[in-house]
């Protein structure tokens, strides 16, 4: 499988230092923070957050209520 090889290569590159760990951390942090922000604006349950983001949720076509 091509994808499997690509993942193996990527892991090998991290191992040899061709992809620095700093990049791995940075990408992981960006994905986690990005998902947290989108999740809070688009999906958070508490009604106070829902009310504040109401129009944005509808405008972005997120499932709202």
């Amino acid at each position: 499988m091509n994808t499997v090889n690509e993942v193996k290569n990527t892991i090998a590159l991290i191992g040899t230092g061709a992809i620095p760990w700093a990049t791995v951390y940075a990408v992981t942090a960006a994905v986690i923070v990005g998902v947290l922000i989108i999740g809070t604006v688009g999906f958070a349950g508490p009604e106070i957050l829902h009310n504040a983001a109401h129009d944005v949720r509808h405008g972005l076509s997120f499932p709202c209520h």
Partner: protein
Amino acid sequence: MKMFNKIFLTALLAGGIAGLFLGVVQNLTVVPMLLEAETYEATGGHHAAETGAEGIVEVWSPEDGGERTFYTVLNSVLVGIGFGLLLTACYTFRQTVSLRSGIWWGLAGFAAFHLAPALGLPPELPGDTAAEVGARQVWWVLTVLATAIGLWIIVFQPARYLKLAGVALIVLPQLFGAPQPEVHGGLAPDDLRSTFILTSLISNAIFWTVLGLLSAYFFNRIGEQG
């Protein structure tokens, strides 16, 4: 630490500007339609209905006018930065990102986060009938993931059978189908609903194009300056 700064600074600048733009566009286009739809909602809107059912508690919500506009813009900026972080994280896997490919990245984001979910769950107006919100959110998240991964495979995997697997990933959630209400429709007139669906999709497509363009621009610029 350099790459961390590059990703987060790109996302803050590109996402912040694109989000501000989205907030302005939404306030000029879809928000007036939401306000009109709310006038059709019986008993003063669903918020009143929900709190009424629970009994007493009056939960804060922004006043119509300046306050509501402010929170819409604020949340647009935040979600712009969030989408910007995901997009910029993808850029680090590529050698270079030209402005033109930035636009394609943006359109892919639009396809994954809006177009594909809208095929099963069209953008909703307040007062529309819909299936249970938790089930719709699960379908939405799975569809976004499947579409994003499917697109990535189609674009970056050379083997034809893998590209077919990418297509299958995109089609699968649509075949499975989104949770649907027993009766479609709502309180607002159908004209308003169809105009809203189209306007919502177009405004999101423009937002993602701007985000893709700006994030590619800043990602390259910040890289040059080390």
